[in-house]
């Protein structure tokens, strides 16, 4: 039992370091039958392919017809629905119901947010936004799982390309000028999310664009002092945990009619609107790190 546990913890440690090989976990007999390593050269093997090609050509002939018919039928149905829809801009549409009236009429008093959309997505429907952040994080994890193990030769960028992008004077001086502005504008967007247009998602995307431009102009190594895989994990997990715990507290208080110390404050101030500002910061951190993480994983196979 003891030995088994130590083996498991060893595997866990290897997995954490990223050196875990999936074939270690397989039983012996499955390793004995290896998959074909080389991609199959289908043009050389005529006798086998001819039969398959007959099958495929039948499929190829029928598929476009079926696809066109399906697309046409679907588009006709959609246009028929367009004829039955109420006019664009009409005030009598069913989407403009008592719910939206209430959001606009009482939103500022109840949530403290001047921007009604921020009040809706981060207060009335904060659960939805929590799920969204988790979708983004899960996508980042899935992309990492798919591309980390690829590693090695095929993912490393071409050294000539690196030489060109990382010594280009135009790119470098433009990046020097634009990156600070991008980051400042992103922070403004995040902190201003409850007062005007903006919010965590757009501000985070702007900061992520700034990080991508910086790493493109000056190389990943210089950005790694600020944001490596370890700090990426810490930032994202802390932000998501903070979001979940803060919303747990406010749901708990709201459901049990308890007095909550989160107050809407004075609408229009920076430090107002209760939880919306900290939640915007958390969402912005997740989005900025994930955008940069996507770029880094696609470019060189790791964060």
């Amino acid at each position, binding site marked *: 039992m003891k030995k088994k546990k130590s083996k498991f913890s060893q595997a866990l440690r290897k997995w954490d370091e990223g050196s875990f090989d999936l074939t270690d976990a397989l039983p012996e007999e499955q390793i004995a039958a290896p998959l074909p390593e080389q991609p199959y050269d289908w043009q050389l093997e005529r006798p086998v392919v001819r039969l398959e090609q007959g099958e495929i050509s039948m499929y190829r002939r029928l598929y476009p017809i079926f696809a066109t018919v399906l697309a046409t039928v679907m*588009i006709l149905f959609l246009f028929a629905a367009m004829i039955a829809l109420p006019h664009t*801009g009409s005030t009598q549409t069913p989407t403009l119901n008592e719910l939206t009236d209430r959001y606009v009429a009482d939103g500022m008093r109840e949530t403290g947010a001047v921007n009604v959309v921020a009040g809706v997505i981060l207060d009335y429907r904060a659960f939805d936004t929590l799920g969204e952040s988790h979708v983004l994080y899960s996508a980042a994890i899935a992309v990492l799982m798919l591309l980390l193990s690829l590693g090695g030769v095929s993912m490393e960028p071409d050294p000539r390309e690196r030489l060109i992008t990382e010594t280009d004077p135009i790119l470098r001086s433009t990046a020097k000028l634009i990156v600070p502005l991008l980051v400042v504008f992103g922070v403004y967007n995040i902190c201003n999310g409850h007062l005007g247009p903006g919010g965590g998602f757009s501000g985070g995307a702007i900061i992520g664009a700034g990080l991508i431009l910086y790493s493109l102009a000056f190389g990943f190594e210089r950005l790694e002092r600020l944001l490596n895989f370890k700090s990426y994990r810490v930032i994202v997990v802390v932000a998501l945990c903070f979001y979940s715990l803060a919303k747990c507290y406010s749901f708990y208080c709201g459901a049990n009619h308890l007095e909550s110390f989160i107050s809407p404050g004075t609408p229009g101030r920076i430090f107002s609107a209760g939880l919306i500002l900290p939640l915007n910061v958390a969402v912005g951190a997740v989005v900025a790190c994930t955008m940069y993480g996507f770029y880094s994983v696609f470019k060189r196979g790791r964060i």
Partner: protein
Amino acid sequence: MLENLWSNRIPCAAVLLFALGFSTLLLHPNLIKKIIGLNIMDTAAYLFLTSLGYIPGRLAPIIVNGDTDPSHYVNPLPAGLVLTGIVVSVSVTALMLALTIRLYDRYHTLDLDKIYMMARQEQGELQ
């Protein structure tokens, strides 16, 4: 009927965009073009949702001077829905691109028909 189509011209543009994306998704064999088609379909959905909430002459749903009369602002709900959609579409696109990189690494082509044939032959060899 035609008058109805004209007054709904923005949703009709959304339907045309959707048709463009859908036919690209179905008819193009290249995997990257398929992903582009799916993204165009996403954009069409956002355009449709936004056009449902838009009312000419009204303000964006940001309260000005404490005026909380609902008849002065456009519908805030579609904006929130579009935000959700954008985030999900970014995640899905990243995942699909990663899968495409893995497929290209194994088969050295992006043509779905060729990939399908090679995968079938590998299956036949294993049996």
